[in-house]
């Protein structure tokens, strides 16, 4: 296990450039990528016009989906070429042996705009990418709440409103939450399992670079008339839409490829690159969260890509697979989409639980309670998530006799998610909790997810579902699970891991201001939405009943405060990273985790030599516990001394 396959470092071998090819070629980065990508788009668009410009439906509608889609395809290929991602595979394919040495480490900020094989750089790229996507989508949420201040007066017309709703949902679901494995999995998992590298560094790096391409393409929909189908993109509405829908389906597809690449890498890394002694029974919970998510992604995302491909063909080549009355069916997309979508929305919970169960023992100063139950909970959620997708379609008229089965499978998921509450309570039981900022966010996760979980029982009960399906109740339910659970977990992880990522300990005082405003504003925003749903407000409406105005205004004002709280976080976070730089002691939380034992900055290659794991990471409170691993520190001070590895 964990054979050392790391390549020798590039010390003293100048001349190789980023991307592992093109000796002494131009320095490739995101900007050359965008440049070549733009050229690619123009080429693809020209080609699409040449192919399909004379088609009857193109002439009739003045809209050429073929050209747009080919533009996106060649644009993305160009972006990848311009970044140097394709150098290595192209060289391999044409029989040129690419240089085996690792690309030279770029210095300073520039390395974050490059295609790089260092798992820690990729992790940080993902972290900032994810935050950018999150804040973009958050601004769109502010726009939604502005419109809903009044039941009848409009800030925007109904078309713009639905464009904003669709962009918000798609951006949050596919761009922000789906990449959550990135910032934490890529950076931390190799450190946690005692590996010098990830299994497929090129896949891992490419997985990140799909996301900015998808971000640009998804936003481009806004000046193409947007798409009014929401993030679920139900056909035939999505077939009826203008070219904005092509941006939706293409960017979603790119994210699908990104998820597959990063999931492949994560699975292979955790299975094959564990250090000696890192048994499954000692694997940190965050790594369990990542591997269960990765498996779920590997099995579900291909179905999404197929569905998107079908949609693309229906829109461009006039196949009619999603059209009723022409041999297709509007149910097909619903099934394909939710067969992906349901594992997806549960797998958003898993990284959150990984983070929470990882951090809780550190601040409770106790071992994780019922470790095996906790793992079983994650595996249970991951497996069951494949058997519940039709609960989105209880009222659709499809397969009504299956409703009891899907009700059962959905409610069964409460058992493994309940395990996580058992683990949480058991760990807190008679502990010595320290309420630092990461711990506050962890406690909030348990608080918030309780609402998400319990309302999930209402939603999955078919007779109640008749009332709540498609209403604000469902909307509140999944915002509690995704924002209340995942986003609060992400915040916990950010506050917890900045000392390791950046050598900076974020201010407790500012962190507490951020926490309390975010926690209160979040609940004040989303709790009333349950009531709105029960009172009969459907989702995605730009007008609503007059009697619901007060509640909606309360929600909007709370949402603005929530937005301000997050803006406060953004400003203080960037300020502390870039300007004030409060220095952190090594391992400020007194964690036993292996990732904390290497010191800051984590050296290139993570460990001087592969550590031998001696004990589990959560043996708090045991005076006789062995250290988690035997390793010589390779932090800033010792890195120069112990640089060579073999």
């Amino acid at each position, binding site marked *: 296990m964990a054979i050392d396959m790391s390549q020798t470092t590039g010390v003293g071998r100048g001349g190789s450039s980023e991307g592992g090819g093109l000796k002494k070629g131009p320095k490739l980065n995101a900007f050359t990528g965008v440049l070549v990508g733009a050229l690619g788009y123009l080429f693809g668009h020209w080609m699409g016009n040449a192919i399909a410009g004379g088609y009857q439906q193109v002439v009739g509608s003045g809209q050429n989906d073929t050209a747009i889609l080919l533009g996106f395809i060649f644009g993305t290929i160009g972006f990848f070429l311009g970044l140097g991602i394709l150098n290595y595979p192209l060289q391999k394919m044409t029989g040129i042996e690419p240089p085996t040495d690792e690309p030279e480490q770029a210095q300073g900020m520039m390395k974050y705009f490059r295609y790089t094989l260092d798992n820690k750089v990729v992790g940080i790229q993902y972290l900032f990418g994810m935050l950018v996507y999150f804040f973009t989508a958050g601004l769109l949420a502010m726009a939604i709440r502005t419109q809903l201040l009044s039941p009848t007066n409009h800030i925007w017309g109904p*078309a713009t409103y*639905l464009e904003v709703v669709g962009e918000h949902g798609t951006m949050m679901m596919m761009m922000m939450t789906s990449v959550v494995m990135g910032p934490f999995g890529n950076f931390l998992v190799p450190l946690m399992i005692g590996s010098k590298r990830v299994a497929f560094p090129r896949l891992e790096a490419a997985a990140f670079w799909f996301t900015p391409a998808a971000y640009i393409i998804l936003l481009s929909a806004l000046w193409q008339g947007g798409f*009014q*189908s929401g993030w679920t993109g*139900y056909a*035939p509405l999505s077939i*009826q839409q203008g070219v904005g829908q092509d941006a939706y389906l293409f960017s979603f597809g790119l994210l699908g490829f990104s998820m597959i690449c990063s999931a492949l890498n994560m699975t292979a890394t955790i299975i094959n690159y564990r250090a000696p002694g890192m048994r499954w029974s000692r694997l940190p919970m965050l790594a369990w969260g990542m591997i269960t998510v990765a498996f779920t992604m590997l099995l579900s995302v291909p179905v999404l890509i197929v569905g998107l491909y079908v949609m693309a063909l229906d829109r461009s080549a006039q196949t009619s697979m999603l059209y*009723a*009355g022409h041999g297709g069916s*509007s*149910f097909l997309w619903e099934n394909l989409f939710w067969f992906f979508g349901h594992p997806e929305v549960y797998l958003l919970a898993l990284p959150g639980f990984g983070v929470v169960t990882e951090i809780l023992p550190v601040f409770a100063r*106790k*071992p994780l*309670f*019922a470790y095996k*139950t906790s793992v079983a909970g994650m595996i249970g959620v991951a497996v069951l998530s494949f058997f519940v997708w039709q609960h989105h379609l209880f*009222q*659709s*008229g499809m397969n*009504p006799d299956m409703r*009891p089965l899907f*009700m059962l499978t959905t*409610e069964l998921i*409460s*058992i493994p998610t*309940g*395990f996580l509450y*058992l683990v949480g*309570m*058991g760990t*807190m*039981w*008679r*502990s*010595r*909790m320290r309420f630092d900022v990461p711990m506050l966010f962890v*406690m909030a996760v*348990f608080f918030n997810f*309780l609402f998400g979980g319990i309302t999930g029982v209402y939603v999955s*009960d*078919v*007779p*109640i579902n*008749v*009332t709540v*399906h*498609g209403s604000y109740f469902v909307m509140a339910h999944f915002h509690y699970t995704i924002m209340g659970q995942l986003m609060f977990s992400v915040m916990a992880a950010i506050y917890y891991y900045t000392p390791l990522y950046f050598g900076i300990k974020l201010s407790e005082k500012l962190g507490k201001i951020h926490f309390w405003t975010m926690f209160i504003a979040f609940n004040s925003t989303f709790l009333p939405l349950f009531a709105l749903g*029960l009172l*009969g407000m*459907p*989702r*995605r*409406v730009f*007008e609503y009943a007059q009697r619901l105005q007060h509640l909606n205004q309360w929600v909007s004002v709370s949402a603005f405060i929530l937005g301000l709280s997050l803006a406060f976080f953004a400003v203080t976070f960037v300020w502390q990273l870039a300007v004030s730089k409060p220095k952190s002691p090594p391992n400020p939380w*007194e964690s*036993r985790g292996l990732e904390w034992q290497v010191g800051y900055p984590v050296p290139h290659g993570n460990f001087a030599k592969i550590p031998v794991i001696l004990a589990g990471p959560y*043996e708090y*409170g045991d*005076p006789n*516990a062995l250290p988690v691993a035997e390793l010589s520190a390779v932090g800033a001070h010792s890195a120069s001394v112990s640089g060579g590895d073999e």
Partner: protein
Amino acid sequence: MAKTMNFPTYSSEEGKKHARNIVAIWFVVAVIADLIVWFVYGPHMPPGTMTDQARGAQFDIKVVSVMAVPVLLFLWTFGFYAVAKFRGGKDRAEGYYIKGNVKTQAAWYIITASLVLFLAGFGTYELVLPAGAGGGEGPSPIWRPSTNKLLQVQVIAQQWRFTYRWPQFGGMETTSINLPINTEIQFNVTSLDVIHDFWAYQLGVKADANPDSNNVAFAKTLETGRFTVRCDELCGIWHGAMFNYGHVVSQSQFLSWAQSMEAQNASVTKLLPKYATTYTPSYLGAGGGYYPAGDPNGTLN
């Protein structure tokens, strides 16, 4: 971990005291909360009492709530108690080395599993008993009302309005909907374009409207009054404006309304395609007329 650490000694008596406190607080709070949920909020819970199906749904919400509220309160009680009592002090002491407890874990598995299985069984029973609980059951429902005397109402959704066809009244089509009281009603929901959803809130009825598909839902009216009809599946820009009201009225009022509508609409009804469970819209799109399925040119009319 070379630094000196503080490991307090363990006392199991103290643990029992904490457990007793938590259970006692929880029990009192949960009983009070459940009484409030059932007796104070219960009668006002959605979707009301207008139909058999709505009453069933309301009963379900009440039952699930009295089960969910104690669970919620137990976790809250535990959480607040833990935050208050299980805090680390200035001594930076470590917690106890407890990695699990067989009895607690077993109790948790058994209790959560029984709750969940009960809920699934209860939900299924409630789904089958009032004929599909008001939800869309597709073209050939297996849970039907026991009677055959059903008022047939076809709901035709299109961008962006609902219309209704009445096969028992000469196949007339109306833009408004009135229903007689104490009557079993069969809604046949279909669409002419994209997916919509017929949500009659107070009737406890919800069924997706799919093109080329008939989605059947049942309801038995029990009270007169007004109900709201809303589209509940995103269907394009005017989705938010796709709603109207209907009324449940006395049987004689309904009959006179329906007969006068039938007479009034007779000349228009003649121009309509023959009543069918689904239709194919004309190539002119929304508002451009429609034809029975399988007859896209309307020549069989």
